């Protein structure tokens, strides 16, 4: 299930939902991303997140389908927040249920790496002196390409 939302989320409740999803699950891997105080700029006070409504959901559905074809994925949950976020706010959640830990870890990491380079989200860093769109990192592209 995929949610693009401005509201915060509760990782404990998301974990419980994944845990309740079926008896075949032997492993749950989750990842939560937070807003940090340094990115392209060093004095970041917050972020603004923009997305392409409609396309974003379709791209993430495609990534979940790809993960499910490569690994044993019983259930996947992706939440990405948009709009204005403050330091330490939760920005993204990926959770994967699988029969085995290796599949849960791999699918969770693949989804997160692919999200950063394929899903139409754009981050703008907000500082005391102005706002600045974040440039795509070669390291993110390399991490995503490594799954090919």
């Amino acid at each position: 299930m995929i949610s693009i939302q401005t509201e915060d989320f509760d990782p404990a409740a998301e974990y419980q939902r994944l845990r309740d999803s079926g008896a075949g699950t032997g492993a749950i891997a989750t990842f939560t991303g937070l807003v940090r105080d340094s990115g392209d700029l060093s004095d970041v006070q917050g972020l603004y997140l923009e997305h392409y409504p409609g396309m974003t959901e379709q791209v993430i559905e495609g990534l979940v389908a790809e993960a499910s074809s490569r690994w044993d994925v019983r259930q996947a949950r992706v939440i990405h927040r948009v709009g204005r976020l403050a330091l330490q706010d939760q920005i993204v959640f990926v959770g994967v249920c699988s029969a085995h830990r290796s599949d849960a870890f791999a699918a969770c990491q693949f989804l997160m790496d692919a999200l950063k380079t394929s899903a139409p989200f754009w981050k703008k860093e907000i500082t005391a002196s102005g706002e600045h769109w974040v440039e795509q990192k070669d390291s993110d592209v390399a991490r995503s390409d490594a799954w090919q």
Partner: protein
Amino acid sequence: MTADTFTVRFFARLREELDTEKLTLPAEPGLTTGAILASLAERGGAWGQLQGKQPVMIAVNQAMAKLSTEVRAGDEVAFFPPVTGG
């Protein structure tokens, strides 16, 4: 939008630098996304970057597309900077 036009949408840095969120343009037979970018770049100023060194990502009807992708009447074309989510 009429039957013989398509829309172009811009996102993030491109939307701000071009000061444009959406355009409606006439559809022509054989038109590609590459030709649309070239024609918009001719407007000069900030539009010139659409053919510059900065990479522009392209989607047609909300699916990733290439410079050679053909555009038809009623399509939704989007141009945007490389994505930076997560």
